[in-house]
């Protein structure tokens, strides 16, 4: 049984959007109201006779319903914690707590007093005038103005809402779902285009919903029945940027309040219709003054009677139709003022409500409603953003598109011109078809450029450019302002008088007057007020409207929440294979770039002492590691490092420093020679990505002829530094195949061997801490196994872990610099205290000229060891070094209390003339006091002679140890099983969309020429994947780069098979095991591409990215290989990324997939591809 709510509710209307079968309650300013589903907040309130919804911004005048649409300036309300809700658009919901904004002191308060008071200084330009002199009055101004602050309240306790985003690649994006937008969508879809149809309101139909509900329903049904049209209602196109990069706010979702869609549309069709403009006269903002479209919406969509006795000012058919609607709704039409015959209104009487309307000649008609129909504004903003300049048509009395927009942007419907419904639809169909044709051309060129398509031939689209039809315009009176002044900009409370004043004060162009008065700069952003503002400025300057021109429309078209713009926050995080162990052992986390590292485990000083006395282990996995192979690696090293590399023997390691071309120190690290043409370079943790790019830059742009292949292997290895006098004893208990004796494996040497049962470990004997130490690089999946074995087998030796802080103390005691800490963006190599490494007798190296000149000039600071005279004072890092007269001569770059020496120690940069050992310096502490400090002889404070690392205890015999367990970076669930020594998740899911960890698959990387013999032997190249005859899958993962995937545990066989393949070609190539260096995930299910479209901006359509496609792109801001390998017709994607970010990617995919019901499916017993 239908029940209707609201005293002003009408009998059922043909086009109504409310559901009378049910109703619910919500509150407005504490009072309870009823609403039907489909009611907006304001339509429900109006149905109960409410007329005042807010107070205006400056003068705090009562404001009511004007447009009954999203853009109704007086209907902005607060809903719970959410301010600035468009009350005439947002649907009422059960239990919603709505309150009005701008209600100081209260919604019902008589505002005469305030008006009198405020009017004195809230005139045009009040922002600028108010904040002038006298300065002593500023606090008073502030106090008063704060009372005027509008726009609702933000609660600091509001929880963060969940927002997300999505990418889209429609052929044709249509802004506006009225008759023209729908007709264009139908024509485009029928021409084979994929269409995204975006409508701001809750239903398609546009003005047909109240002018011709039958036609609206018919077109809407046709759109729904046509394939290839994605309809987004309650969504809005916010902006159009270069190359049709289009922002859409989608609000019709259940799981998220607002979603930003980033669409790359091949063609954009602007079909935003027309917006009815208000009329300017005295009292035009009084509640009860409404536009003709507003009363037609109220009556036809919401069955609300807008008043009891009306005066109608009409200049067009919308006004005429409103009269018929009013009469049908039982509103008495007391007078019709027909502007086409010269009739006009002068003012309305009444403060909170219209009481009477004064007509030309002084006649006064009692009425509670004044309806105006004085013309239209074309919302051309999307066209303007595409380069168009609208042109004023005096005939149509509105601006029209200038026709100069980018040729990927077309317009139809009311924006483009006038016509009957049939004429508009016919025009829109022609535009839609042309949009589809242009999109097809564009798509053809795009597809031709991507390497991921399958071999199917791409056919050039047929169809020739159509001559675009034109819509004419109808005659409309130029009607903007009556004989009185009134409000032009309702949101900013700017009147036509203010604009006249602005012009009188010299702001005589539209752009100046706009800024001075803030007209068109409020929440409505000019959609209602621009043309009236321009007409008023034209009137005041004596120019025509065409001469005055329009102001510039910029994005956003409507306000959007910051949450929607932020979307999901994707911040890739990297973990070492031992991170979970660190967490379980109470490590204090340290955020170092993307890495989360253990800073210490409770007592860094004790960790330091244990390294000096016994043995400690530290997780140094983030150290950058680059695998370098090829005959020309020495040339590369000689070019990039300041020191010499030609004579580095196999098994040897050397420290090197890299500078940029300006001679400034960029990175440092050790590089070891593993084989004839095989080197492993280490970089700083933070510099790993930069150095890789740097190396590629020199190789690709300056020396493409050199035979060098660079492969980042940072996370292919878990890196563990074992340091301390007992480190040889500990390492030798677990190592096989390496002579660890002092003679057999000397300082600055490198070996490969088996550690704790794990093959292919790289061992460096180097010493950042100054102790005897071994840096173990272990295939990453076994990192935790080796870490735990070291702790277990070193228990009697007193082994304990140490963190980054302990390492920083140890290295400072030893005087090793940290690039970026002890150097900065101006520190040239001679200033870094590494004179011994700089070899100016090399013909060339990066930055050499600057270093030649620095040496000649002797300029710049010097890095020196420094010890405060007072051994208990630790000057904070960045403390300045000053002369007695206060001149700055340097700064402390590193400082700590040394647990070994029991005194404070520092490194610092000082002017060259003060760098002599023994020089007394003054340190200016942050608290203002000064302490004395002395330059030391060496950088090293502990063991400057370097004898500690020469300890020559004999190695021990290997001991039995636990069987190695390989672990994926993705934490398995509680139920696990073992496949080929891998511990894997044993969960089972049959959900429609599933995420599975496939990291255990064998992964081998191959490099060669992109078009050479290796490419031919592998049978594919960048962009495509094939199954080879040995049951492996060969992925063309980059230009001259392949990823070969095989079954779990099969990497050794695969490796040798690929090495043979490369060798047989005779071409220079490299083959590297990536099994442990990468994570591999699989998403499968019909909605897999929809999920990926939320985290990945690349088009995943079947045309661009079919089965077998391989590409590399950014997924949730992480560089990821995306490989499409369908499962018997069900879409499936493998995602391949650096191991350390595997868990991050896994979590991001689960988050993005939640709306599709994604589930984790454990690794299958026999994973196949």
């Amino acid at each position, binding site marked *: 049984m239908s029940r209707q709510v609201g005293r002003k509710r009408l009998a059922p209307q043909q086009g109504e959007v409310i559901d009378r079968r049910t109703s619910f309650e919500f509150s407005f300013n504490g009072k309870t109201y009823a609403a039907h589903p489909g009611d907006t907040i304001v339509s429900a309130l109006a149905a109960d006779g409410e007329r005042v919804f807010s107070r205006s911004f400056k003068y705090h005048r009562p404001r009511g319903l004007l447009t009954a649409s999203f853009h109704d300036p007086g209907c902005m309300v607060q809903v719970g914690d959410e301010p600035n809700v468009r009350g005439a658009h947002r649907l009422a919901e059960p239990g919603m707590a709505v309150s009005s904004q701008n209600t100081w002191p209260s919604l019902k308060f008589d505002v005469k007093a305030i008006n009198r008071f405020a009017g004195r200084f809230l005139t045009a330009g009040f922002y600028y005038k108010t904040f002038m002199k006298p300065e002593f009055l500023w606090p008073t101004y502030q106090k008063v103005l704060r009372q005027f602050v509008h726009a609702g309240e933000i609660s600091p306790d509001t929880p963060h809402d969940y927002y997300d985003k999505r990418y889209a690649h429609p052929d044709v994006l249509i802004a506006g779902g009225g008759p023209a937008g729908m007709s264009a969508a139908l024509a485009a879809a029928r021409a084979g285009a994929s269409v995204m149809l975006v409508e701001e309101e809750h239903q398609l139909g546009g003005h047909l919903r109240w002018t011709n509900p039958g036609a609206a329903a018919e077109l809407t049904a046709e759109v729904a029945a046509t394939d290839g049209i994605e309809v987004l209602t309650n969504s809005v196109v916010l902006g159009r940027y*270069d*190359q049709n990069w289009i922002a859409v706010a989608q609000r019709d979702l259940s799981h998220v309040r607002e979603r930003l869609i980033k669409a790359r549309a091949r063609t954009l069709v602007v079909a935003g219709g027309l917006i009815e403009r208000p009329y300017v006269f005295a009292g035009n903002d009084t509640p009860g003054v409404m536009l003709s479209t507003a009363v037609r919406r109220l009556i036809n969509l919401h069955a609300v009677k807008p008043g009891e006795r009306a005066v109608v000012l009409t200049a067009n058919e919308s006004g005429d139709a409103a009269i018929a609607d009013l009469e049908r709704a039982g509103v008495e039409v007391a007078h019709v003022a027909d502007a086409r015959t010269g009739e006009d209104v002068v003012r309305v009487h009444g403060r909170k409500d219209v009481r009477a309307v004064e007509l030309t000649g002084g006649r006064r008609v009692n009425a509670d409603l004044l309806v105006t129909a004085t013309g239209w504004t074309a919302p051309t903003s999307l066209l303007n953003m595409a380069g168009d300049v609208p042109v004023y048509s005096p005939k149509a009395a509105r601006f029209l598109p200038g026709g100069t927009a980018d040729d990927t942007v077309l317009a139809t419907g009311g924006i483009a011109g006038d016509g009957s419904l049939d004429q508009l639809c016919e025009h829109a169909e022609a535009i839609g078809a042309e949009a589809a044709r242009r999109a097809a051309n564009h798509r053809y060129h*795009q597809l031709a450029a991507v390497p991921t398509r399958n071999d199917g031939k791409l056919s050039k689209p047929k169809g020739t450019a159509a001559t675009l039809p034109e819509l004419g315009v109808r005659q409309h009176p130029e009607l903007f302002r009556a004989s009185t002044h009134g409000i032009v900009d309702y949101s900013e409370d700017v009147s036509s008088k203010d604009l006249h004043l602005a012009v009188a004060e010299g702001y005589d162009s539209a752009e100046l007057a706009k800024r001075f008065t803030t007209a068109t700069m409020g929440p409505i952003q000019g959609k209602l007020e621009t043309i009236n503002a321009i007409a008023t400025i034209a009137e005041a300057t004596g120019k025509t409207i065409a001469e005055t021109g329009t102001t510039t429309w910029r994005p956003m078209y409507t306000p959007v929440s910051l949450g929607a713009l932020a979307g999901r926050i994707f911040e890739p995080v990297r973990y070492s294979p031992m991170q979970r162990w660190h967490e379980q052992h109470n490590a204090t986390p340290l955020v170092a770039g993307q890495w989360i590292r253990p800073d210490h485990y409770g007592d860094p000083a004790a960790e330091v002492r244990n390294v000096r006395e016994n043995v400690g282990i530290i997780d140094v996995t983030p150290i950058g590691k680059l695998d370098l192979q090829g005959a020309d690696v020495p040339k590369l090293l000689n070019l990039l490092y300041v020191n010499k590399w030609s004579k580095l023997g196999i098994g040897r390691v050397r420290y090197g420093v890299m500078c940029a071309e300006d001679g400034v120190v960029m990175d440092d690290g050790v590089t070891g020679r593993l084989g004839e043409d095989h080197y492993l370079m280490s970089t700083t943790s933070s510099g790993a990505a930069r150095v890789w*790019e740097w190396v590629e830059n020199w190789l690709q742009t300056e020396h493409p002829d050199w035979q060098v292949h660079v492969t980042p292997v940072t996370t292919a290895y878990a890196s563990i530094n074992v340091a301390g006098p007992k480190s040889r004893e500990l390492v030798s208990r677990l190592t096989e195949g390496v002579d660890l004796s002092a003679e057999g494996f000397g300082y600055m040497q490198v070996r490969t061997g088996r550690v704790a049962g794990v093959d292919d470990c790289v061992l460096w004997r180097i010493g950042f801490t100054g102790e005897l130490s071994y840096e173990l690089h272990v295939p990453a999946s076994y990192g935790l196994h080796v870490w735990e074995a070291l702790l277990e087998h070193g228990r009697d030796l007193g082994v304990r872990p140490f963190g980054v802080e302990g390492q920083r103390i140890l290295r400072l005691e030893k005087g090793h610099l940290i690039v970026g800490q002890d150097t900065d963006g101006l520190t040239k190599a001679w200033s870094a205290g590494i004179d011994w490494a700089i070899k100016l007798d090399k013909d060339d190296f990066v930055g050499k000229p600057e270093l030649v000149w620095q040496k000649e000039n002797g300029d710049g600071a010097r890095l020196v060891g420094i010890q405060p005279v007072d051994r208990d004072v630790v000057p904070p890092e960045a403390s300045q070094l000053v002369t007695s007269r206060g001149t700055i001569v340097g700064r402390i770059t590193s400082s700590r209390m040394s647990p070994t020496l029991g005194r404070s120690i520092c490194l610092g940069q000082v002017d060259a003339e003060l760098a002599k050992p023994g020089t007394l310096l003054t340190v200016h502490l942050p608290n203002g006091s000064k302490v004395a400090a002395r330059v030391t002889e060496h950088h090293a404070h502990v063991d400057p002679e370097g004898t500690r690392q020469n300890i020559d205890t004999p190695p021990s015999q290997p001991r039995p140890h636990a069987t190695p367990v390989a672990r994926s970076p993705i934490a398995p669930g509680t139920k696990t099983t073992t496949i080929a020594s891998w511990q894997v998740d044993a969960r089972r899911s049959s959900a429609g969309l599933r995420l599975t960890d496939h990291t255990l698959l064998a992964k081998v990387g191959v490099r060669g020429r992109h078009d050479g013999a290796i490419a031919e032997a592998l049978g594919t190249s960048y962009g495509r994947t094939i199954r080879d005859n040995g049951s492996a899958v060969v992925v063309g993962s980059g*230009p001259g780069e392949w990823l070969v995937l095989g079954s779990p545990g099969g990497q050794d066989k695969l490796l040798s098979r690929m090495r043979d393949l490369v060798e047989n070609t005779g071409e220079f190539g490299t083959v590297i095991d990536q099994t442990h260096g990468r994570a591999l995930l699989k998403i499968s299910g019909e909605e897999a591409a929809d999920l990926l479209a939320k985290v990945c901006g690349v088009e995943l359509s079947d045309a661009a990215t079919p089965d077998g496609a391989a590409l*590399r792109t*950014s997924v949730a801001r992480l*560089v990821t290989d995306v490989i499409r390998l369908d499962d018997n017709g069900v879409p499936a994607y493998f995602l391949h990324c650096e191991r350390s970010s595997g868990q991050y990617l896994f979590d991001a995919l689960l988050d993005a997939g939640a709306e599709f019901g994604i589930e984790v499916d454990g690794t299958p017993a026999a994973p196949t591809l």
Partner: protein
Amino acid sequence: MIQLPCPWCGPRNASEFTHHGEVTSRPDVGTATPEEWRRYLYFRQNANGWVDENWYHTAGCRRFIRVRRHTLSNETEAAR
């Protein structure tokens, strides 16, 4: 956001690339005067018009590519 025409990957969003600035040429290290060298380090045309730029496809093929770009209109063409 504009797209750049990667000759390897096809058109991709500019956010996948690292901008390496205008194409420069490295003077002979043996003979360069300080002025020549610093011109190479710091001076750029900064034209209002077509410029040749180096871009690195960081989140894609990881190739350095050369792109001709109009700095006013953002029109691009691959110039590998």
